């Protein structure tokens, strides 16, 4: 049985066809094969959240999915979210509030936070600080102590709710 798999998927809006080793994780695939190095590799066992990306509209651990599983899938990495402007306000808030120092966790943190903000928008609510902490509980940051990150996410949540009404 073959150790290699042919996959066709959509990454940040572009159709990609590649032959990958079955054992290759999604995050290694986007980094090594597609040169999309915004998704970071941290713990490689689902604890740190540095590899958080979107598959078929929901956030996943890029280290806990195989590229082989993504045949036919729609994958969005931080490069896609950034280029489309979808998280521009979050990025600005992170910068303004010093919600990053080394930046290693930031792509995953932004991607996780964006999912919470989308869910909050669907139910017409501004997430509480507790809900923000809960939603990013799977994303380690070893620099900031999280307060500034929660501040940034909260300010964007309020701004988006205000802009909408």
């Amino acid at each position: 049985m073959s150790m290699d798999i042919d996959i066709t998927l959509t990454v940040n809006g572009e159709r990609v066809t590649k032959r990958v080793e079955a054992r290759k994780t999604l995050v290694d695939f986007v980094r090594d094969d597609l040169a999309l190095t915004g998704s970071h590799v941290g713990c490689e066992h689902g604890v740190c959240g540095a590899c958080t990306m979107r598959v078929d509209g929901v956030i996943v651990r890029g280290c806990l999915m195989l590229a082989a599983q993504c045949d036919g899938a729609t994958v969005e990495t931080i490069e896609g979210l950034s280029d489309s402007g979808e998280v521009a306000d979050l990025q600005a808030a992170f910068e303004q509030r010093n919600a990053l120092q080394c930046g290693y966790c930031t792509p995953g943190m932004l991607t996780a936070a964006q999912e919470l903000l989308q869910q909050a928008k669907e139910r017409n609510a501004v997430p509480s600080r507790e809900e923000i902490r809960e939603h990013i509980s799977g994303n380690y940051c070893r620099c900031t102590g999280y307060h500034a990150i929660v501040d940034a996410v909260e300010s964007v949540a309020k701004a988006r709710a205000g802009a909408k009404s």
Partner: protein
Amino acid sequence: MKPAPFAYRKARSLDEAIALLGENPDARLLAGGQSLIATLNMRLSAPGLLIDINGIGGLDGIGLKGGAVEIGALARHCAAERSDTVSKHAPLIARAMPFIGHAAIRNRGTLGGSIAFADPAAELPACLLALDGEVDAQGPSGKRTIKAGDYFQGLYETALGPQEILTAIRLPAAAADTRIGFAELARRHGDYAIVGLAASARGDGKGLKDVRLAYFGVANTPLRVTKSEAALTRGDIDGAVAALDLDPHDDIQATAKVKKHLAGVLLRRVAAQLMEQRP
């Protein structure tokens, strides 16, 4: 680390997956992968073949059937978390769901995978035991149903045969007098529990009956504490704590002594939850 090399096949039917398991004794089934791929990355396991069952249709339903909540093996945690059927008829599962991993994990992980993997520190196996649920399995010789009490046999060891696939779990639907309790202590929300406790009971006037207490993180399997259940049925919380006959091992998170103490703390919290619930 990176996984050791393996082959990958996407099964299109249960029969195909069962046949592949028969032909490849060193194969593993891939469902949500949220435990399996972590162990592959750490090379704690190195199967020759991964059989991806995510493409098999009809295994992700959540519904009420004949007085029981039936959850297909491939239903993802996030689906159960948002399911009205689960929150109304299997409230213990709904209560436990936010404790399972993190949002990104719950978007991929499956209930069937969690029960099949049978991690002794995981929430769902203990919930299945506390609710006296059952597991449907299918193998080369057909289908069978296994009671939760017979299912968990050892550390990561279940009653499933090497060629059997878990297809659904079934939980008795909550009745008007059903009470549930759940508590867990972890260093970070979503991490594996240091100790956890899932419970169900029925209200009986001012008291309780049919108390079932299932601990996780304290033994090789989820574990019922029948002496404490009996004490709680008598309304004796102190007696229930005193009757805890747990023998946990030291692990990376806490010593056995700390775990035993925390088990008592959780029992008091869960007892309060069980006794406070009024229809």
